[in-house]
């Protein structure tokens, strides 16, 4: 296992990303992505019909059915890919970094150390809100390719995660009063137990989160 030998610490002692457990997204997020996809495809169908009518083929039954068939085929394909994609999407948190994996055929896995987080944002899209879900977006200075967007989180959970990451990234270091000690945060860190969202401490985190929103 020791490929890199001139490095002055033993790599096998380091916490390993591979060992850690990835958390799947909320089951409802599957519906959210299906609905978003469907909305996209309705617009797509609209574009096809507009195109056909401009080209004067709208009333040519054969061509129209052909286009419709192609559309239906693409839709089915895209929905099944959405399913595969949904099953693979997952996130993980460790004490010092956050990870997110996604992709259908070509997969990717991005890791951001908390020290490099510049900004964290909780956003709720229109469809997401219908299913009471939110997305957590983590920004770094590394540009779009290195930013994370973890969808399919319960809003409270997303807020907790945001507070946790902000705290760990030391972006909120100045606010000393109601700051939790490192030990406490570790105990409440969202990847150890999900129950903490129901406990009173999550309200504390919410408060802290409110302070840091400015």
């Amino acid at each position, binding site marked *: 296992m020791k490929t890199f030998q001139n490095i002055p610490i033993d790599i096998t002692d*380091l916490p390993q990303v*591979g060992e850690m457990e990835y958390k799947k997204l909320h089951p409802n997020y599957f519906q959210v992505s299906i609905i978003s996809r469907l909305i996209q495809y309705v617009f797509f169908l609209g574009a096809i019909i507009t195109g056909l009518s401009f080209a004067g083929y709208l009333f040519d039954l054969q061509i129209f059915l052909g286009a419709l068939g192609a559309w239906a085929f693409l839709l089915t394909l895209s929905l099944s890919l959405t399913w595969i994609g949904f099953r693979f999407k997952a996130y993980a948190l460790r004490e010092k970094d956050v990870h997110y994996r996604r992709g259908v055929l070509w997969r990717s*896995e991005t890791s951001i150390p*908390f020290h490099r987080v510049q900004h964290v944002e909780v956003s709720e899209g229109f469809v997401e809100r219908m299913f009471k879900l939110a997305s957590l977006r983590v920004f770094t200075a590394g540009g779009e390719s290195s930013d994370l967007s973890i969808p399919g989180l319960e809003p409270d959970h997303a807020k907790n995660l945001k507070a946790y990451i902000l705290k760990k990234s030391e972006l909120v270091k100045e606010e000393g009063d109601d700051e939790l000690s490192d030990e406490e945060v570790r105990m409440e860190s969202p990847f150890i137990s999900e129950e903490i969202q129901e406990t009173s401490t999550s309200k504390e985190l919410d408060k802290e989160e409110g302070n840091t929103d400015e």
Partner: protein
Amino acid sequence: MNEFYTPRRQSPVAVLFILLKYGRRLVRLVLPLAILYFFRRGDGGGGYTYLLYLAGFLAVYQMIMALLEYFRFYYHIEGDELVIERGVFSKKRISIPFERIQGVNFEQNILHRLLNSVQFKVDTAGSEAQEVAIEALSEENASVLRDLILRNKKEVVATSAEEQVEEKVEKVIFQVDVPTLLKIGVTANHIQTMGIILGFLWGTYSFAEEIFQFGPDDIVNAFWAYVGYSAIVFGIWVFASIILSLVRTVVTYYNLRFWQYEAGFKWISGLFTRQENSAPYNKVQLIQWRTNPLRQLLGLFSLKLFVASSGRRTANELPGSTIEHIEAVQKTLYPESWLAFDQVHAISKRVIGRRFLYFGLIPFLIITPLLYLRFEWWSLMFVLYLPLMYWAANRYQQRWKYWINAHMIKTYSGVIGTRESILPIYKVQAVSYRQSPYQRRKDLVSLVLSTAGGTLQIPYLEKEVADELRDYILYRVERDQKNWM
């Protein structure tokens, strides 16, 4: 010197530059109207005269605005801030604290140079890419103002951090003279041009076919006629491409000078527009240097600095340095102990097969039938393409190397030319894995390291090795308290 402490206008020649700026904007505004006017159908009636009036009105309006902009633009220094007041209708006051100023850059286009003036640009540290520029100052005033800002900035920083003020040092690292520029132009990568030529020849072949109207009988004659014809075309084309890249190189890099000042690198170049750029040391994220076989013979490298500035990422290419210069740049940026690498690592051999498939076999299978349609059995010559691509894929894997020590990652790659990159681990913002379906089956990943200036990719690593690397890099980033910018 004291004159900078009270609000003052720009150099009067700034009127000219502001007018020019508005002029360009006007042209963009009026152009659609002009097109409408010229392509009007028939007489068009009175509606088009209104268009003319509208254009005239816009021109006068823009001119007045330009004058107002000049007369309502003031700058001065107040305490530890550079203050700019401007705005035609509502006055806007921008104050930039010296500690947020990362650098001052002068830019001169040909008109600036004729009028002995410069455009004064202030590079700020804010993540919002707000650019502050004073259109025109006389050269003298500009350098006085710059010294004033940079000196005060140092005092502010020094008193707050209680650091020692360093000596002002400016040392030229390299300079590119005209003969070197010519060498750079001639040895540029002409392969792209070759591609265009190939497409061009394909086109001219069908063209020639139409002109000579040869049937299948005289195909051999026509072929040789075609070869002669295309040899001439080819010659002209290569000549043109070399001249073109020569001109481009000279215009962009004329009199390129690259030097270091106390806080970073600066360089200036250009024949018509002389642009001065700067890269403070701490903003340099990743450096890369490249060469091709011809340039290597001449000992020439092209240096690329990936810099994070004002929230933008910029990659600055600087040709014409030698390996000594590049070493000097590295030593300026990083302690010597960081640059010691010993254990060299390779990427997976599986990349050979994949690259052969993507760049060799698949293009071969697609292109050969097309060639057959046109050239019949001659197209079998194309089979030679396969061993060539196999060689290239093999060489790609053999030459791809990387090194890692406690502070840095270094990579080396290239099939024909070479490209080397060096990146301090603490500059990494995020670590990503990319996996194609094939890579997933074979348990391989491509590792992408993102920085605020650009990315570095190490392809086709065994998953186990990539895991080690990723964990180590994340660990280093988290441990290192150094500021990446």
